[in-house]
């Protein structure tokens, strides 16, 4: 089950009503949320519940063991051993379920190229739902306890709920202990804003995901990626840009729905997207897109590497390449994702070096500072950033490197007519995502703020109209979402 499926429209309201009828105690609320979370996960596949619970139990035992070590050295051998045990379990589960086929297929292809007939068996395993998300969340918590950045929780129930909390388990946001666990350690109170804010976030997320992303995907993206040789250049550009809008609508929409659902239970999850299409550099883009994953990668890979005492110290470019290669591999067990990650790593390296050189110019002459602050520079930087991101989505969307190569070739030679399906609904769904961003521009933000300051009945009418629109227009196929596969 996910939040777009029909079942969730019965499941969620029932869970919310029962939750707020419970006594306002941490124990009752957390126990109920844990049962709901386990039920939610079991509805997808009850077999993998054991994997989720086993990992959570092991990590709880490990953090309690670390807490019991009272010596001054956070990196004592015993603490280090249990950290390795925790990371090994998490990474092995991820490697086995997510990457076994990728590694086996890659090795088989290599053996075959070398003329060897030996082939490794490829297990066709079902990917446990949310494994990439909940694994990183738990790993981050255990590492923070190891580094003594946080005091580990004493409550098994709270930790289990932190590891299994159903709104975020499918596709994040990936929370830190200091964000989610601290909220679970005290009872939640029902305030007037709790339900209203949660419902609005859910509704907005649903519109982005189930309407806008779905329409753009089926009309502009899927046909061109399925048979790129039948389309012209304009259709290819529309497909690449459309996919950027689609993947934003899909994932930012689902993240907003998760944030909204958590809010209905009085819990605030971290923001996952912050108007990424307003970014004027790749560095800024990655601070605005899938925020919780990127801060995880920077907190636990990039920063420790580049500030270490060893060989990696100060090697920012290499650390960036490695971090983004890891990001690519995290997104999917395919070479297309690795290429996508390296492409972004390379982009970050180029941007960083450009920035260094430009700053050297700024030091010499302030006219470069003024140029950098000008609208022309901002517009050019925005255009380059968007073009880079949209181009990077070609391997991200393609089913194989060969398909990505064919797409690029057909984009260059334009083999077919420039057929782009243009309908009012398609334009409206793309316009919806564009407007969503525009209302965060400094000059337009006041309109958004004015809307939220309107009396509740007026806003209620607007939301009602949106619900009617969505009920009429959401395609029946809108049942899955892109990031679920990761």
């Amino acid at each position, binding site marked *: 089950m996910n939040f777009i499926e029909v079942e969730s429209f019965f499941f969620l309201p029932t869970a919310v009503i029962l939750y707020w009828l419970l006594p306002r105690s941490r124990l009752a609320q957390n126990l109920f949320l844990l049962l709901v979370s386990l039920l939610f996960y079991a509805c997808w596949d009850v077999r993998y519940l054991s994997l989720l619970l086993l990992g959570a139990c092991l990590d709880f035992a490990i953090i309690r063991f670390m807490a019991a070590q009272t010596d001054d050295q956070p990196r004592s051998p015993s603490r280090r051993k249990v950290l390795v045990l925790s990371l090994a379990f998490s990474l092995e589960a991820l490697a086995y379920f997510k990457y076994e086929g990728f590694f086996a297929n890659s090795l088989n292809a290599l053996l075959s190229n070398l003329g060897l007939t030996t082939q490794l068996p490829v297990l066709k395993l079902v990917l446990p739902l949310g494994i990439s998300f909940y694994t990183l969340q738990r790993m981050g918590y255990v590492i923070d306890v190891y580094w003594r950045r946080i005091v580990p929780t004493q409550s098994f129930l709270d930790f289990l709920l932190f590891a299994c909390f159903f709104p975020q388990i499918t596709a994040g946001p990936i929370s830190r202990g200091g964000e989610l666990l601290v909220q679970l350690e005290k009872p939640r109170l029902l305030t007037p804003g709790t339900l209203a804010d949660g419902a609005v976030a859910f509704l907005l997320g649903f519109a982005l995901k189930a309407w806008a992303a779905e329409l753009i995907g089926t009309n502009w993206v899927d046909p061109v990626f399925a048979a790129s040789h039948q389309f012209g250049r304009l259709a290819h550009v529309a497909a690449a840009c459309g996919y950027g809008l689609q993947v934003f609508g899909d994932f930012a929409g689902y993240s907003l729905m998760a944030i909204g659902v958590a809010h209905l239970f009085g819990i605030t999850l971290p923001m996952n997207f912050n108007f990424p299409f307003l970014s004027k550099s790749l560095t800024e883009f990655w601070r605005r897109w899938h925020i919780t994953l990127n801060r995880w990668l920077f907190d636990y890979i990039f*920063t420790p590497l580049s500030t270490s005492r060893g060989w990696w110290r*100060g090697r920012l470019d290499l650390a960036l390449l490695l971090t983004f290669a890891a990001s690519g591999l995290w997104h999917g067990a395919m070479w297309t994702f690795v290429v996508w990650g390296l492409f972004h790593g390379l982009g970050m390296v180029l941007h960083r070096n450009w920035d260094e050189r430009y*700053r050297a110019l700024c030091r010499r002459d302030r006219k470069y*500072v003024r140029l950098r602050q000008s609208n022309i520079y901002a517009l050019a930087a925005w255009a380059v950033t968007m073009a880079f991101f949209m181009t990077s989505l070609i391997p991200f969307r393609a089913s194989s490197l060969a398909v990505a190569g064919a797409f690029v070739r057909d984009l260059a030679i334009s083999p077919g007519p420039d057929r782009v399906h243009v309908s009012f609904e398609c334009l409206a769904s793309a316009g919806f995502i564009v407007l969503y961003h525009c209302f965060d521009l400094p000059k337009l933000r006041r309109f958004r703020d004015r809307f939220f300051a309107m009396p509740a009945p007026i806003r209620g009418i607007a939301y009602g109209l949106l619900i009617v629109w969505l009920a009429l227009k959401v395609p029946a196929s809108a049942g899955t979402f892109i990031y679920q596969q990761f």
Partner: protein
Amino acid sequence: MDEQTVKRVVTEWLDDNYHFGDAATLIGGDEDKSFLQSGILDSLGFVKLILHIEQTFSVEIDRKNIVPANFDSLQRIAAYVCSLPGARLSP
């Protein structure tokens, strides 16, 4: 090591590397202003700032302390660096 020295060194570094004379204006007298939220520094800049602080004040910053609570504003950096034993301006 006093906090004013640390603040001066960090502001100079921001000026030399990121804001070219505008760092003090951007901070605007609010020494608690979040570097990340106000765009004064990004994540790459943080790493470079940490490396610079280690070099300039002859200190080693433990990984557990590389958190926004210690580095996200002028005041926090100054308080944190001054709390490090043996922190001194490198010759």
